[in-house]
């Protein structure tokens, strides 16, 4: 999975070891601040609700690794929670994460998403979602970013394209092996 918005670029390669646990590598760069993170990531499905017409999940996201900027480097650790609920028409998600990287960076960030599918796709067809995303990073001066985006699913491919109201381009891609 790769996520890119403005100056921030993330790459996650996660192997699902069991239906409830995955491990892999998380690499992130911020080209504005010249910060790079490299971490061993461990993600767990804490709970899943399977309903006749909907699904809900709670995930634990975590990682430990190494962080550096132009001046210094540090060990890093992060942890967060992701929850979502979706049916075939509506989608909601909340995600937060606290990251500690010593002198390089310490931050808390959270994100909310609301989405609607303009049509209902069948298995194997192109699925499209219109999503509104709000990011909140309390430490930053302009700490709320609003981003409308389009999500498209096709078989094992998921792509998201959008632009924040400030003009930061968003591109996310996930391939399910």
């Amino acid at each position, binding site marked *: 999975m790769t996520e890119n918005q403005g100056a921030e670029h993330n790459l996650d390669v996660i192997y699902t070891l069991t239906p409830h646990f995955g491990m892999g590598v998380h690499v992130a760069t911020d080209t504005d601040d010249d910060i790079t993170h490299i971490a061993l990531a461990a993600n767990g499905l804490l709970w899943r609700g*399977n309903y006749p017409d909907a699904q809900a999940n709670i995930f634990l996201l975590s990682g430990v690794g190494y962080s550096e900027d132009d001046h210094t480097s540090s060990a890093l650790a992060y942890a967060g929670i992701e929850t979502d609920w979706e049916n075939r028409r509506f989608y909601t998600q909340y995600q937060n994460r606290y990251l500690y990287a010593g002198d390089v960076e310490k931050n808390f960030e959270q994100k909310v998403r609301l989405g609607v599918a303009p049509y209902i796709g069948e298995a194997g067809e192109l699925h499209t979602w219109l999503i509104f995303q709000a990011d909140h990073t309390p430490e930053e001066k302009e700490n709320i970013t609003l981003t409308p985006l389009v999500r498209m699913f096709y078989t094992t491919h998921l792509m998201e394209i959008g632009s924040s109201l400030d003009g930061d381009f968003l591109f996310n891609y996930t391939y399910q092996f």
Partner: protein
Amino acid sequence: MTRFLLALLAALTLSPASFAAQNCTQNQMVLEVDGMVCDFCTQSVKKVLEREDGVANVTIDLGKKTVTMVMKDNSVMDDAYATELIRQAGYKATSITRSCKG
């Protein structure tokens, strides 16, 4: 006439098609599955089921919330194992019905 009808009945009874039907091992399973709401969900389910040696084909209907599994000849999967495979894929099978295919 009666003799002809009896002969016709015997021929139908012993035809290959009716012989196969009598020996059908219920080789198609239709599972109703909760939580399967997206195309990534269907890919997970297909991947888990198609790993099984006895499974010939898997088709998924998101609208009906069903997974249809056709078994290879002489292969049988019991309900508990099929339910467990769906659980391993991350979802919940709520009912299973069986039928002969073809």
